[in-house]
């Protein structure tokens, strides 16, 4: 007992006091900054494994990007640079397509808009059921990390539940495999109305690098609107938490 208290005392404070102001190390590959308008010094089809780079105009689709950094190294004029800004969540797929002139500050202000009805119903308590549908355990580990002692998402009343019946929405990871499509739909249907849908990670948002595979089924996203997209491969806990905080207006 006293030994445990000693450890507790010695290890000290672990939580991040202000998650909105928290920054990540400069090495982190986050929001891409693009300086070229229509000219790239490399062939994106040869370089980008996720087909996330557009050419006219030059763009990076964060919904596809896996933030591997291969393009950054292929650039001869620094046309694409990854900044360490982590607030990359968006409420519409088109918001995530970044072109020259879109700065991180601008993006962070506009990419997620608080919806009144969401704030009213879920603003103080938001519980999720998570479904991994072909996720590689990267995003799953980061979603678990959201609730650890550092990030402590529970402080905002945002938590993951064991049963869909107790939840207000679903957080989907993975490209949605054919073998999980049914289970995902069943889980979604078991959540009482009103409910929200969050797609976490490049795979869930767009299929990512698995989008073309025949074992993948993206039907769910044809029939259901996504309320929040959280880019990353895997997502960073701060990207996830800050995205939700914007969505519920906190």
């Amino acid at each position, binding site marked *: 007992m006293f030994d445990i208290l000693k450890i507790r005392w010695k290890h000290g404070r672990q939580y991040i006091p202000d998650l909105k102001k928290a920054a990540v190390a400069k090495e982190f590959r986050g929001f891409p900054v693009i300086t070229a308008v229509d000219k790239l010094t490399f062939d994106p089809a040869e370089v980008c*494994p996720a087909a996330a780079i557009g050419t006219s105009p030059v763009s990076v689709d964060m919904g596809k990007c896996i933030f591997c950094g291969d393009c950054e190294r292929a650039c001869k004029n620094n046309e694409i640079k990854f900044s360490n800004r982590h607030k990359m969540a968006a409420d519409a797929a088109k918001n995530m397509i970044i072109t020259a002139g879109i700065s991180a500050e601008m993006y962070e202000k506009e990419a997620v808009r608080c919806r009144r009805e969401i704030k009213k119903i879920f603003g103080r308590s938001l519980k999720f059921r998570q479904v991994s549908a072909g996720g590689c355990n990267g995003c799953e580990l980061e979603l678990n990390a959201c609730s650890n002692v550092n990030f402590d998402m529970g402080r905002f009343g945002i938590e993951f539940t064991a049963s869909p019946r107790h939840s207000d929405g679903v957080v989907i990871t993975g490209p949605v495999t054919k073998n999980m499509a049914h289970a995902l739909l069943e889980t979604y249907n078991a959540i009482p109305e009103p409910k929200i849908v969050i797609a976490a990670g490049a795979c869930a948002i767009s299929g990512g690098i698995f989008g073309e595979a025949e074992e*993948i089924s993206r039907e769910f996203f044809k029939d259901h609107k996504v309320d929040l997209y959280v880019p990353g491969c895997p997502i960073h806990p701060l990207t996830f938490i800050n995205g939700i905080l914007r969505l519920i207006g906190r």
Partner: protein
Amino acid sequence: MKYKHSKTNRAIRLADIPELSITELSGALEKACISGKRVIGFFGDTKDEGRVRVYSILADDDASEILIASCVFTAGEKYRSLTATVPQMHMFERELYEQTGIIPEGHPWLKPLRSGGSYEFFKSTGEEMHEVAVGPVHAGIIEPGHFRFICAGERIEHLEIRLGFQRRGVEKQFEKSSGRQMPALAESVCGDTSAGHAVAYASVLEALSGADVPRRAHVVRAIALELERAAMHAGGLGAIANDIAYLMGNAVCGANRTTLINTSLLISGSRFGRGLVRPGGVVYDIDAEKAALTARSTVEAAARIGEMAEEMFSAASVMSRLQQTGIVTKEDAVSLGLTGFTARACGVPIDSRSDHPSGAYKYYPVTKLTMDSGDVFARAYLRHLELQQSACLITEMCESIPAGKITDKCDVLMPEAIAISIVEGWRGGIVYAGITDKNGTIRRLKIKDPSFNNWFGLALAVRGNGISDFPLCNKSFDLSYCGNDL
């Protein structure tokens, strides 16, 4: 011996691999496994006219060798199943059947491995018998899989694990890439072992291209591998603590896992070490400043987890949950071909880092750590020990990163050849086998994650345990669903 002898990360021309009849191959395989060789590959490569060349790959851990032989089948052909005599062939034969249609006659459990659709579970009836079905969606934030328990009262008599929900067709995607290198895909095969899979994939391409990976790159890779091991062991210990409601353990492990993965971020720009390893070497360097910082944070995190773990493992309330729970015997571990810390916790001394040393492990030898009891405690305590060992290795490597380049050219691959790479990921031996066609593009890439061997071990371990101890047993194995489902 009818097998050709080779080593990890060595390219062999396909023409040099012995082509045996199935009777010869079966006999040689059975004989080899009796003398302690392990099956690390048994897969088909479809050739022209519907013929399939099946490669059998064995690991000889004592001699640090890989043995390889082959046999040509026509699709739909039958042969006598080897599972009855060599139980570790069980999953490999099911996989071969599913991928090529070659039928292992007399296989005791020839059920779908990854495909969806109908599936018949084993049944057992009796007055007190009842079934409990769990999944594919589980209560926590974990990957999907279906568990079907047959219990007598609360005691588990039998567990059948049905996987395949995560099947993304990864091997096919590698093969479709027609010459393009796909390290990012390798990093997503099993996302909690990004570095392990990326190194295995890169090693195959490097062996086939003859790239001379600089020593510095090898050391950076090994640091990434050990950081991954330490971080995942920390996460696993925390999760075990959480499962027995020892919340301090979870809190401390969680916080220090953050430190460890943030150290990976410092090196690679990703908390999971993604984007670091590329065929030919690594793309991010560890300079003196980063090396010092890496060593310092790792040592601190390991020390903090260490003191928490010692405290936890000395609590009677903890030990009563962990000891004698979920036991796998050494005999079962050997015959099922279990791998990684799961096997070492049963007293099976296998560790690819010292059995098949490659890269930096040639210069930084790793002592194998084992436990004997094969229960949840052994697996958990071993992970604590391995975490400490990883921290020592990281410090040692950070203090002596050799000078030089961090990458070499790796583009033209040897045509019509095979290279096999074994990498000890945190969970166990990851095996990649790459086969090139006559143009030197990867035609077949076979991936074996350690989970592929170990899932059946879990099914055995829970027998005779209370069903409420299943989460604890499951967490102590800490297996990957997508690594199995590919």
